[in-house]
């Protein structure tokens, strides 16, 4: 029996005074991949921001435990260092900060938290270039300021690289396939699958079933009205693709 990695109980959260997450319950065990599907505007992304501790996203009640620890009392960076990684829908540009510099700061922050020595520049560059190559990121791209002027596909490759080198124990993919062509989506899917093992877990937040053809989930949940309204296996995603969300949204 594998242990729970994420336990969400009766979670309620609001953004700008508006309640988006209501009485949300979900437990994800080590080794599992869960997908949350739902109509646009239902607040799926809100869930990912709440889990990551983004400012402006306020938890009003409920609890979240991550690997047994109280997640909600941790800062954003502590959650990240504990192993939560969010593949973002719109990765932000940071002018003047070379991708390698950014990655090095991130890797060393996580390593320090884990009690590991910082990587020196040579070790780090060797590792990042090697992993980059596997994802179709060349040395030139690594020198460019992070995400600045990157195409949608390049941004997602960079996200995949960050995930690969940070080796999170829990990855959240927030609409990771939006606006991507098949090749770029496959890169993301491959990097997720490569990370997948019996200790790590994933949460895939998506509107379409498409990505789930490449990263096969153990569970599929339908999110509407602030919480999960139905849970099934991968076949539920196929069914949704055919019948739409209408049936689940009309609940209240």
């Amino acid at each position, binding site marked *: 029996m594998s242990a729970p990695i994420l336990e969400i109980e009766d979670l309620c959260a609001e953004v700008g005074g508006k309640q988006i997450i209501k009485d949300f319950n979900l437990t994800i065990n080590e080794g599992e991949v869960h997908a949350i599907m739902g109509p646009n505007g239902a607040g799926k992304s809100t869930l990912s921001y709440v889990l990551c501790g983004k400012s402006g996203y306020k938890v009003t009640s409920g609890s979240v435990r991550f690997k047994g620890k109280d997640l909600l009392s941790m800062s954003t*960076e502590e959650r*990240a*260092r504990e192993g939560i*990684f969010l593949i973002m829908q719109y990765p932000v540009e940071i002018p*003047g900060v070379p991708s390698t510099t950014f990655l090095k700061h991130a890797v060393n922050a996580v390593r320090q938290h884990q009690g590991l020595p910082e990587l020196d520049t040579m070790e780090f560059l060797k590792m990042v270039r090697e992993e980059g190559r596997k994802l179709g990121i060349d040395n030139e791209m690594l020198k460019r300021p992070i995400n600045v002027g990157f195409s949608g596909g390049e941004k997602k490759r960079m996200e995949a690289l960050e995930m690969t080198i940070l080796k999170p124990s829990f990855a959240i993919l927030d609409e990771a396939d939006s606006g991507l062509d098949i090749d770029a989506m496959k890169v993301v899917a491959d990097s997720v699958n490569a990370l997948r093992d019996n200790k790590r877990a994933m949460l895939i937040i998506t509107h379409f079933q498409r990505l789930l053809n490449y990263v096969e989930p153990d569970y599929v949940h339908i999110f509407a009205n602030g919480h999960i309204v139905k849970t099934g296996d991968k076949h539920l995603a196929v069914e949704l693709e055919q019948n739409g969300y209408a049936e689940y949204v009309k609940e209240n």
Partner: protein
Amino acid sequence: MNRPEIIDESGDKYKYGFTTDIEADTAPVGLTEDIIRLISRKKEEPEWLLDWRLKAFEFWQTMQEPTWAKLSYDKIDYQSLHYYSAPKQKVAPKSLSEVDKNLLETYDKLGIPLKEQEALAGVVAVDAVFDSVSVATTYRAKLAEKGIIFCSISEAIKNHPDLVKKYLGSVVPYTDNYFACLNSAVFTDGSFVYIPKGVKSPMELSTYFRINAKNTGQFERTLIVAEDDSYVSYLEGCTAPQRDENQLHAAIVEIVVMNNAEVKYSTVQNWYPGDKDGKGGVYNFVTKRAACRGANSKISWTQVETGSAVTWKYPSCVLQGDNSVGEFYSVAITNNRQQADTGTKMIHIGKNTTSKIISKGISAGFSNQTYRGLVKVTPQADNARNYSQCDSLLIGTNCGSHTVPYVENRNRSAVLEHEATTSKISEEQLFYCQQRGIGEEEAVSLIVNGFCKEVMQHLPMEFAIEAAKLINISLEGSVG
């Protein structure tokens, strides 16, 4: 004589806030003709220089302190300051071994191990100005082999009077402005650099300025002359102890650049900025100007301004020679109650002259910052080109940033471009960094360093590292 007391610097982040307990020879308080005569006598100056000082003093008394800058500070009582303070030493040091041990320790604390540098014959030659007097110039012998003169301006007045007389005040006349005029009357030391024709300086030349004594104004004067086909890169660093009173600093830098010569002047200014409530700190009123007199000459100013309570500074380029080039790269950071009104002047006179201005201002806390710049194209300056870019970054909601670019164009062939942006560090950028495990302060420093990158890459390597560290220190506590 006064012995400065040690100020308790516990709990503060300014790491250069210590004072050095050293016997000093200090002039009485106040500014009169007699004080100027005293300074001149102490320095055993020639008659012409005393006359020049006195003329400047006479003129200064007719002038008004400028009020056009966006700065507010308590009125300076010029009669309450000492205008001369020198570390007491019986005879002028001939080499480092004769320099006071306490003084050398001070420079060690500041990260300038003079002895080590001389011994290792490294890359930088240093002139160190302590309060008013230059105490040590390293590498002199090695530079002299190439014909380069690098010494304190006092020594230059003694040993190279013709050169000093020819160029002193030729770029910044004593009538130029209130603070320059004051400096001309009372300047006590500074550095002198002369690069002969065809010589490229084999090392970077560097001056460290240090205010130590209490209630003492510091008025250095730097003069750099680069003859035809020469090159020099010059670095200037500044620190001051932490004191509750404000300290006045009014310096002048004059640079003359002849045909095909190039001077690169880099500054890291870290005078004590005052405490978080705006108590104490250095008033920094500086006139820096370079005259590109020769054809194809080039001057490049790079400054990183993190210190001082009040900064009033506009390093300028007078582009007289045809095809001459002027550049200004600036990062100014203000936090807490600091105020900075800084920028540049590009005066296009020769034909085909080019200038470039890249200014990055970062304001945090309750600070206020103004970029003030002038691009002037005179009627004879055919085909002048200027590119100006002024970017401001705001951290928090209580600081201010202002951009005041003046353009005076009298020639139709000029091509002038100006871009300006003001932005805040976005929540999204911070979130992105933090979600990858990077702490908030580290994230801010990463974003700010990215913002300044275009300027920082113009600094010599060892200076760039120091400057990046300073930026981080300056911004500590500005978020959260």
